[in-house]
């Protein structure tokens, strides 16, 4: 295990981390604007992964071109979910809201289980076997593609919130829902759009993740928890924090995978979560409540 080996492990971790970051972005956006903890986001990602899987195996569309389709589809799902179900639960006790999304998660996971069965599925692109050489580094082509696409989507999202009218309106709602209503913004619709954006992010991440891992129905709980770890690490409600958290978790996963036993890496992640919750619950880039 020399320096080159570690550099490769680190760079793989960084790249994967960007995809994780994109997934966590979705979670963070939803929480940042509506204070809803989307416990079903891992499940939505799994749905996206299966969708991407179907698009490739049935229609031959590769995940990256399929991304707009899948993300769009998940946007609609999220929009409808928020508009017709979650909206009514915005003001209620925290644990009831949490349980509601839990029930959504339960239903989605098991529908997926029934439709696709419990076995893992994966896709093999030509690119899956190729790699780029960057000096001493050997980077998997798919990983690079996934990471750059994730970065691109994140940048688009940032631009959306910064420069478009809707994006600004959403930020207004996040800061002050009552004030937003007073100036005539349709808060319900904006919330629904926000939720849709959140699930679209998760959908995009799912598409990309299919390039890197196999999909099976029980992946959802793993990624829901991973999403939370990232978002709490980086700071709930902070977009930069989600990306940063994603990268950090990707890194720590990669490193702990080689330094400690691979199966212990989730233990490491949970230990990290516990520490963060105790010491700095607002995360690295989050604001103190």
């Amino acid at each position, binding site marked *: 295990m020399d320096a080159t080996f570690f550099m490769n492990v680190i760079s793989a971790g960084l790249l994967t981390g960007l995809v994780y970051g994109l997934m966590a972005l979705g979670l963070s956006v939803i929480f940042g604007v509506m204070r809803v*903890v989307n416990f079903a986001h891992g499940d939505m990602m799994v749905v996206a992964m299966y969708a991407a899987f179907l698009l490739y195996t049935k229609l031959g569309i590769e995940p990256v071109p399929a991304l707009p389709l899948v993300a769009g589809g998940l946007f609609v799902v999220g929009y409808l979910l928020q508009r017709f*179900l979650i909206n*009514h*639960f915005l003001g*209620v006790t*925290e*644990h*009831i809201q*949490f*349980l*509601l999304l*839990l*029930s*959504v*998660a*339960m*239903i989605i*996971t*098991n*529908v997926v*289980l*029934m439709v696709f*069965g419990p076995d893992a599925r994966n896709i093999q692109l030509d690119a899956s076997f190729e790699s780029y050489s960057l000096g001493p580094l050997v980077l998997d082509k798919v990983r690079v593609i996934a990471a750059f696409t994730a970065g691109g989507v994140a940048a688009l999202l940032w631009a959306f919130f910064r420069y478009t009218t809707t994006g600004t309106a959403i930020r207004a709602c996040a800061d002050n829902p009552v004030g937003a209503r007073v100036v005539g913004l349709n808060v319900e619709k904006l919330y629904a759009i926000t939720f849709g954006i959140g699930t679209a992010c998760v959908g995009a991440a799912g598409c990309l993740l299919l390039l890197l891992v196999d999909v099976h129905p029980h992946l959802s*709980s793993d990624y829901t*928890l991973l999403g*939370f770890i990232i978002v*709490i690490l980086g700071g709930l409600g902070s977009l930069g924090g989600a990306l940063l958290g994603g990268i950090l978790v990707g890194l720590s996963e990669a490193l702990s995978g080689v330094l400690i*036993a691979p*199966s*212990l890496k*989730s*233990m490491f992640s*949970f*230990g990290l*979560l*516990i520490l963060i*919750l*105790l*010491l700095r*619950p607002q995360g690295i880039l989050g604001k103190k409540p």
Partner: protein
Amino acid sequence: MSALLQDRRAVLLLGLLAILALAPLAAGDYMLSILITVLLQAYLGMSWNVMMGFAGQFSLGHALYVGLGAYAGGALFVHYGTPPWIGAFAGMAVSAAAGAVIGTLGFRFKVMGVYFALLTIAFAEFTRVLFDHWGWVGASSGLFLPPAPNNSPDNLWLLRGSTTMFYYVILGMTAGAFWFCRALLMRRIGYYWQAIREDQDAADALGIDVFRNKMIAVLISASMTSLGGMFLAFFNNNLYPESIFSMHRSIELMLGTIIGGIGTLFGPILGAVVLTALGEGLTILGAHIGIDGVKQIAYGICLMLILVLKPGGLWPWLRKLLRLEGDGR
């Protein structure tokens, strides 16, 4: 009038207990194992209820205590032949210690609400992976309890025996838990817990030691749950970290109480009945469709319906319907 109502509830309860006590005379092993499922679900639900319903602390990682109790009793039995009733104390001690750690960290660091729930999940998952790698308890291959030789008599002390024996054990545990919870609610601590649950700040201003009372709830809840874990270990004779510490199990043990009514005495029992009936009904109806998936979907829909229509649970509604209201439990 109130005394009469009290009597009515007591009569119904005793009647129910009598019927349950006599059930093995009429019911076969299959029916008995369903009843065992209901009772265990009710027992675990009541244990969770102490922490969530009485003291208002949302634990989403209660499987931790189930697992610790199960493994403590199971491993001690497998390695040293320790009788389960002794091993149970070890289990309760370990679970209470785990609860103490979670509670102290959570309450001292002011981790509340959703964050607290995530903290509990993190601890449960951490422990799951830990046990997956711990050779002494069998790691991920699991721990297996030696079954009693065929046709040997029921051994209550070692918990090796027939379904009927296990039935009476869990019936006793559940009845005991019910009586215990009722007693707690009627004493000072019950009032303090409810005050803390309703408004922690106001409780603090009334001189209540919030931290201490929350911790007591956690310790009691953790210990009670671990006993249920021990029962599971000896009833199933096998243990896997994947299944006993899983989030799936944490969710499962909460569902009954949520459906029945968090914070009520009868809620967990009613919820257990509803869930098991639903599960068995589905098993009978659709044995050929991917059965596990359908059951979970049904549970998910059930949960959603309750949250949307009757977030307080079915028991308060049923209680009103049957006009069984006594002191509001």
